[in-house]
């Protein structure tokens, strides 16, 4: 995609070529500030909106003048951890999707669609049922293991040459189907595991607490930094391995680091909230439509806008079926599926 299709037309007005580069960069930087503003807004909304509506001054009170009232407890122990988890998981999924799309040169790459989440889920369900793991620390490491294994398989299948997006997507779906069969079998033979897993496999932020956030935060932070640092080498690799080498980058090292970043990000996000599909697919696509193919812009935008999407859908899920709520994984799938279909219908697939 990065090579084959031209960047989408920029909405910027036609200016002389010399000045265009400068003004485009200025526009992109301003856009980044806008994205940051949107992120702040949605963060506040995520703390304020829910089964119990909390006015902003009360949110402030709960955060900085904690007095132990019901509202304060909801803010501190429920809403804030949930929001933080949404920020972390959103950034992780969006960046993982962007890096995967660049790495496999496959515009349909998404951690969920490629089975990375299912790998993490399969490892977690094995741990719960076979090894009797109950602690979150255990989940996290198992999820990393599963995510890493599936990332390697998918990469081995389509990382280097010749794999068309269609076949790679099919391979990912098929791997997911196989792993889902395994997950269902384990759950069926062990109904205690089923009772715990069925809430986890749908993808939700509702179980967030301060411990959970503290556990996954370091992994996500390292993954985010690593992914952002890879923007330039991944840009070079879009030209092909030989060109990238000529430009002084080291393709093998870049691939290894990118896979590490994807594994850290997907593993942490999946361990904490269960499998969430389509966030990693949607956000980089939306971002690319106004930044162009340069990863130095795509990655920061994805890191800021993915949490906006995830928290936004989470808030929507809390509101639409009140007083019950719709898990965020369900909402992202309901939003992302149609967008995916739109992408498939719009583009000439041969060029992707």
């Amino acid at each position: 995609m990065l090579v084959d299709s031209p960047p989408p037309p920029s909405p910027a007005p036609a200016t002389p070529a010399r000045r265009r580069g400068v003004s485009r960069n200025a526009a992109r930087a301003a856009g980044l500030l806008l994205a940051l503003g949107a992120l702040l807004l949605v963060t506040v909304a995520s703390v304020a909106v829910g089964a119990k509506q909390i006015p902003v001054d009360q949110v402030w009170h709960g955060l900085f003048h904690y007095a132990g009232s019901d509202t304060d407890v909801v803010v501190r122990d429920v809403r804030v951890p949930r929001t933080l988890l949404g920020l972390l998981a959103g950034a992780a999924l969006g960046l993982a999707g962007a890096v995967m799309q660049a790495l496999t040169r496959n515009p349909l790459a998404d951690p969920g669609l490629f089975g990375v989440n299912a790998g993490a889920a399969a490892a977690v369900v094995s741990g719960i049922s076979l090894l009797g793991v109950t602690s979150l620390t255990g989940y996290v490491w198992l999820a990393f293991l599963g995510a890493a294994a599936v990332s390697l398989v998918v990469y081995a299948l389509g990382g280097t040459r010749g794999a068309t997006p269609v076949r790679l997507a099919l391979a990912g779906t098929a791997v997911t189907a196989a792993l889902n069969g395994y997950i269902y079998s384990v759950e069926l033979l062990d109904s205690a595991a089923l009772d715990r897993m069925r809430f986890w496999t749908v993808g939700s932020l509702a179980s967030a607490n301060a411990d959970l956030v503290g556990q996954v935060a370091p992994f996500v932070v390292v993954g985010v930094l690593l992914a952002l640092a890879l923007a330039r080498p991944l840009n070079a690799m879009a030209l092909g391995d030989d060109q990238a080498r000529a430009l002084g980058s080291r393709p093998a090292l870049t691939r290894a680091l990118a896979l590490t970043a994807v594994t850290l990000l997907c593993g942490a996000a999946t361990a904490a909230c269960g499998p969430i599909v389509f966030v990693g697919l949607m956000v980089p696509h939306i971002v690319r439509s106004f930044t162009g193919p340069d990863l130095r812009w795509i990655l920061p935008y994805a890191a800021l806008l993915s949490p906006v999407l995830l928290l936004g859908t989470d808030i929507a899920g809390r509101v639409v079926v009140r007083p019950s709520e719709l898990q965020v994984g369900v909402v992202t799938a309901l939003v992302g599926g149609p967008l995916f279909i739109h992408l498939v219908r719009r583009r000439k697939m041969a060029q992707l």
Partner: protein
Amino acid sequence: MTGTRAVTSPRSPHVSRFPRALRTRGGLSLRVDARAALVVLALLAVALAASVALVGTGDYPMSAADVLRTLTGGGTPAEEFIVRDLRLPRVLVGLLAGAALALAGAVFQTVSRNPLGSPDVIGLGQGSAAGALTVIVLFQGGTTAVAAGSVAGGLASGAAIYALAWKKGVHGYRFVLVGIAMAAVLTAVVGYLLTKASLTDATRSTAWMVGSLNGRDWDQVWPLLAACAVLVPLVLGHGRALRMLEMGDDAAHALGVPVERTRLVTMAAAVLLTSAATAAAGPIAFVALAAPQLARRLTRGSGPGLTAAACAGAALLVTADWAAQRLFGPDHLPVGALTGMLGGCYLLWLLFTERRAGRM
């Protein structure tokens, strides 16, 4: 796809000499592929042997001779009851569902021109599951209602995929990708329904979703048999057109195949077959994916090989059910779990060989 084979003529000794044509003086000819015919017979033999073994397996084991004697009307009343009422329906559902799934898989693989394009990958299984779970979780429906929900869900998702993939005709890749998106959305819906359920309903739903032949009775056999009786001949009748479709739309069109109509009819039949099989046995994994490929490798045919695929599916499912009971004890592990695990291994192998051969 598997390697193409040169068109054989009787005079070229270097290539396989199996396909022969019977010709009459009036200019009619019938192409007979002896290898394919042999493979079909062998697969039928395997399916029947596994069926007899399966009828004999359970809390009251019976020898093959006893089974055959009972089936031909010579058993004791107790044996009659066990065979006729308890075990025969299970075997028949297995045979029919296996054949139906495999046939549907062969159609989808041919139409999408991809060995991975099977109904369970592109969202039909998930559609059926969503339909059945809706009935289980929201309406606490009985067995018949669950089956109806499964058929409705499968049909609705099939129709939606076709409609969404339509753009001056339905092309294989677009159909598959739309199906993948559909599968992801429906998986989320299924997960949501599972969280809404009580633990009892959730266990029942999960058991249904793995796919099982446990406790099937004649109520499941008759509808499935009726569906197969109508749809299997319909699909087999389109075998030639499908074979040409595999060469690409333009070539098929040039050879006089009504491309879009063939696709619509065969895919509709395949969706119905999948739904009927799923209603009876649950969305059993990977039979639709693996059986047509197995048949193709055995017959070394270049086309879809519909009859062989159906026989392979029947043999595969019944053998897997027998093996699951033998290995894990009667009724402990549903057959879908076993086909799922076998299918996972098969899939990895397929992916890697396809990749090595540069076809991935």
